């Protein structure tokens, strides 16, 4: 990457002459324009944007400074300070690098922006993957790793709606990769469901994996899982809060993904209830019913309470249901 730029003279350009639809050099996705908006209102544009002459109806495309041009447009500014590069000055890759270096000095990139930068380097500018890993990944704040490059490139398959979800909800890379594995149509089906729930990173991963695996195992469309009445009735329930809906939808999907385990858990709970355990005594199976020990735990405040619990436990130990619970292991 070359770093010594010979900068052309600064000029003033009318913002409506700039084609903001042209995103050839763009690496900004869903920027937070609030602070910039305020600063421009107060002191105007301090640094010129970099433009490229295209010779089209709107004769300029942005090399660097998308956010500033947006804000100027929004605020109705008549002019914006700019540095304009003629077509023959520098290669397209060098201009993209200029944008990249400008951005790295003032902000960090979100996940989708990192993927955008790396994707453009590989797909649009034909930079060798090795070069991308070594020279560019550290610039966007990533460890130079071929695997990590591959992971980010896989995000190319995410739809723009899902990209917004990823950025707004701060979805981590591993989950974004899972989302990118769905077809655009299936992402469209998933998006309303995911956006309506309150999901931690682990819960999101579980949900995406379960939906995907249920659909594949049962040979049904993703829509067949997501739009199942058992799910939609929860989702559109007028009284339930978002956390309640989230938990109920998780339970419904879990039961469909793990029918055996769910059946065993329910059978265990039924039998345990029949034991009529004393208060503050818990009896649980080994995780996933793997193993041959039940776990009993209890709490007590004084010797009398302990004696009472022990008496009750002797009663429990003689009940047929306890044998049935042990038989389940």
């Amino acid at each position, binding site marked *: 990457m070359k770093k010594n730029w010979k900068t052309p003279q600064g000029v003033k350009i009318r913002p409506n002459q700039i084609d903001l639809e042209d995103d050839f050099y763009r690496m900004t996705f869903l920027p937070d324009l609030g602070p910039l908006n305020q600063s421009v209102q107060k002191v105007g544009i301090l640094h010129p944007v970099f433009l490229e002459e295209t010779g089209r109806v709107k004769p300029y495309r942005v090399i660097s400074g998308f956010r500033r041009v947006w804000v100027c447009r929004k605020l109705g500014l008549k002019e914006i300070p700019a540095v304009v590069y003629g077509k023959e000055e520098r290669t397209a890759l060098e201009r993209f690098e200029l944008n990249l270096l400008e951005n790295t000095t003032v902000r960090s990139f979100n996940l989708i922006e990192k993927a955008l930068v790396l994707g453009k380097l590989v797909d649009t500018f034909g930079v060798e993957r090795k070069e991308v890993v070594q020279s560019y990944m550290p610039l966007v704040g990533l460890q130079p790793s071929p695997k990590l490059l591959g992971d980010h490139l896989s995000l190319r398959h995410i739809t723009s709606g899902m990209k917004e979800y990823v950025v707004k909800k701060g979805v981590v890379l591993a989950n974004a990769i899972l989302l990118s594995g769905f077809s655009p149509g299936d992402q469209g089906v998933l998006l309303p469901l995911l956006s309506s729930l309150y999901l931690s990173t682990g819960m999101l991963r579980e949900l995406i994996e379960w939906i995907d695996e249920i659909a594949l195992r049962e040979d049904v469309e993703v829509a067949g899982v997501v739009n199942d009445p058992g799910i939609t009735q929860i989702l559109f329930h007028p009284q339930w809060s978002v956390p309640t809906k989230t938990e109920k939808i998780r339970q419904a999907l879990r039961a469909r993904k793990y029918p055996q385990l769910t059946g065993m858990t329910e059978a265990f709970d039924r039998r345990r209830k029949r034991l009529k355990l004393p208060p503050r005594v818990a009896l649980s199976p080994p995780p996933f019913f793997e*193993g*041959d020990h039940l776990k009993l735990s209890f709490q007590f405040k004084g010797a009398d309470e302990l004696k009472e619990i022990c008496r009750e436990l002797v009663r429990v130990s003689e009940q047929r249901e306890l044998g049935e619970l042990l038989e389940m292991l």
Partner: protein
Amino acid sequence: MNCYEIVYVDKAVLNCEVTSSVLERLAQVPIEFIDDPRQLQDEVAWMSNPIGAGKRGLVITKSKGKALKTCPGARGTLCCNYTILDIVQNCPLDCSYCILQGYFTNPFIVLYANVDEVLAEVDGILNRNPRRLFRIGTGEFTDSLALEGPIPLAAKLVSFFADKENALFELKTKAVYVDSLLGLNHRGRILVSWSLNPQAVIDREEVGVAPLDARLEAARRCQEAGYKIGFHFDPIIYYPDWERDYRGVVDRIFELIDPRNIPWISLGTLRLPPGLKPVIKKRFPYSKIIYEEMIPGAGGKLRYPKPVRVQMYRKMVEWIHGYDPDVFVYLCMEGQELWPKVFDERPKEGSMYFKVFDRNWW
């Protein structure tokens, strides 16, 4: 079978007999000489499908580790005391469920050319422990016969173990390259065993691997040559028609093999380290085995819930013992608590196995 596109030869084993013999057989394959196999890591990092590519590259190098390794059985499971003779790592065949995918840092097929040194070490171990019976095999880090042809090691190993009184040597395979074994004097001490699955599973999950009938025919030929024959139903895979299909395999076994020549049949339902799931998903997109209901069990491996496993094992045992109740059947990597649900008798830790093997074998 020659599937190699490149052979990397570690300069340290240039003068080994095994190296020259393999290179002679792979004369058409490009060779690259290397100072250290670790230098291949960089190349691997850039591969989009390192596991697939690894199956087409052979690394001939020197074993620096122990000759015998304990089978990595999961904690909390009853162990069958299998000891791995580590001379080849990775496998040219391609089964979707193969646990070796990504198991070693090096995805290439690795052959330790200093076989004689390795066997000398084994000899020492056997001599120093005359009272211990070692169950030894090469079928854990690779397929014992899949490399035969360009890399004919089986005959050497059979000849070595044929006169070892305290070793029970097993060649475990899905391949059918048994010609090199047939004329050997194995003294009845060598077991050749086949991993079996119904043809429907082979078609979907075992890419480029010999069909069921060919495996059983190879087993029959080895039986004729006096070898003991073992079978491993591992992994047993659950799918709607599993009962009909697995029963069919059991029937085929006893059509061709005399139960008196079968020292054991092992059973193990599908187990997957969680990290293998994305690998299978990527490499075998049509495979559905990973989508079945599986829960984390012993050693953190995903497996079918216990009632499913018990049902599958019970059926298999019933079908096998329907032919001969004396055929010894054991469960691979299952906890002790499962055995009484499958068998009438509960085996004791470790040594019980050898007593049973002893009775059937020696």
